[in-house]
């Protein structure tokens, strides 16, 4: 169970993680993109961080929708609308709810992925954020189906996302800016997959710390 207070804590942690990894994400994007992913994401999550205090007593739907709209209007680039849409779709699953149960979580994650796909039309193996998110979803689903704890489920999802990040190094980009590099994109890690993993890891760390 994730209460709205925990949700806010998770988002706070995501914001911090993105800030800490701004240069790292930018480096990755310099290699196969245009070198702005860390900068874009940090701009967005800095704006989210500034909004969080005003969301202290709001429900999970409002918190996630505000996050979504903030990302949409600050990040820019490809990742802005994609992550924005993901959070927007996730928010509609928990409209009016003050807590998120494991079934909600799974449905939120699924909706988020569907949102990204319907905006960006990418497939598995196209070397995008989806290559971290799909395996993460599968792991999350398996863990929850097997009645694991939230913490265990998030840990499994995070590990699977990291596996997905590693996998992006081995494949050729088909979508996004890196696709222009063709074969030359192989060997490089996808920035968006990396930021997806970092966000999941931040969520897991928050839950893990709470014990």
């Amino acid at each position: 169970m994730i209460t709205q207070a925990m949700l806010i804590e998770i988002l706070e942690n995501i914001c911090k993680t993105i800030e800490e990894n701004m240069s790292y994400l930018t480096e990755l994007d310099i290699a196969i993109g245009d070198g702005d992913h860390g900068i874009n994401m940090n701009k967005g999550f800095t704006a989210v961080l500034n909004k969080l205090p005003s969301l202290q007593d709001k429900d999970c739907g409002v918190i996630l929708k505000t996050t979504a709209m903030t990302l949409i209007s600050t990040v820019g680039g490809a990742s802005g609308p994609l992550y924005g849409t993901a959070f927007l779709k996730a928010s509609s699953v928990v409209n009016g709810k003050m807590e998120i149960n494991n079934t909600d979580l799974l449905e939120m994650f699924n909706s988020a992925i569907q949102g990204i796909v319907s905006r960006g039309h990418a497939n598995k193996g196209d070397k995008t954020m989806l290559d971290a998110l799909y395996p993460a979803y599968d792991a999350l689903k398996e863990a929850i189906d097997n009645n694991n704890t939230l913490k265990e489920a998030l840990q499994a999802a995070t590990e699977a996302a990291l596996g997905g990040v590693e996998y992006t190094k081995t494949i050729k980009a088909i979508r996004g800016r890196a696709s222009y590099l063709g074969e030359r994109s192989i060997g490089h890690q996808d920035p968006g997959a990396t930021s997806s993993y970092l966000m999941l890891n931040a969520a897991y760390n928050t839950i893990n710390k709470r014990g």
Partner: protein
Amino acid sequence: MKKIINDPNQVVNEMLEGVVKAHPEYVKRLEGFNVLVRANKPSFPKVALVSGGGSGHEPSHGGFVGEGMLDGAVAGEVFTSPTPDQVFEAVKAVDNGGGVLLVVKNYTGDILNFEMASELAAEEGIKVESVVVNDDVAVENSTWTTGRRGVAGTVLVHKIAGAAAEKGKSLEEVKAIAEKVNANVRSMGMSLTPCTVPAAGKPGFQLADDEMEVGLGIHGEPGTHRAKITSAKEIVSHLMEKILKDIDINSGEEVAVLVNGLGGTPLMELYIVNNEVAEILNEKGIKIYKTIVGNYMTSLEMAGFSISILKLDEELKELLDSKADTPGFKL
């Protein structure tokens, strides 16, 4: 990083202020937004053209706001698509009852952000259409990938669709003309040096003293391949070969040529390039109707150029010739 700037995070803001202060007779800024619109909104209900994208391509796109070209331009951060709310604001500001045509370069980020803006505008009952420019032949066109990029050919879309809108054509007509330009223009570029996004502080790639990047886009990203620098003649002949392989132009047909500098290339070299372009076209019996040489779709301080060839018919010729009066393009 050597740049004449103040704060890397303020470059877009201060540039827009500098543009408005230089050309108040042409453009004004929508307060609170990174959007330039015409200083004087046309009084008749013409179709309004809005373009935009990441900054760093100056004079694209803000420099093309004015009579006969754009009605509004949205400036994202450097090389980063602008957000939907900014585009939406531009659309609302320029709509004059005739509807709005968005000219979008084919990059995932631009597509997605402009698409979300269209959705917002449609919800408010504004007629919005989009044209996606994808003129770069360096990238193979395949339905399995993101497709070709939009590069300097976009400027010709602005010019010609802008002329059509100024003549009072309908949204559908202007859109069709923009699509016709896109269907008939092909571009390809190369560079001698990388460029540096101010906020990133270091260049997007490294090149040895005798190397060039071929087939690159306009965002400081690497190209399709790297090669030893050769002569202007060989470089141009390679680019022209790729361009002319991708579009059928017969002897006797007419074209417009755009030799576009990427920001750090001396005009001298652009004219040397044009000399080679013209010789190749002459040899093939292709007639040069109009040539444009200069910095129109740049990549910050990158040294390099692109060639765009636009196949013309009578309609395109007439629109290409009609008046354009903007800070960055006058005719």
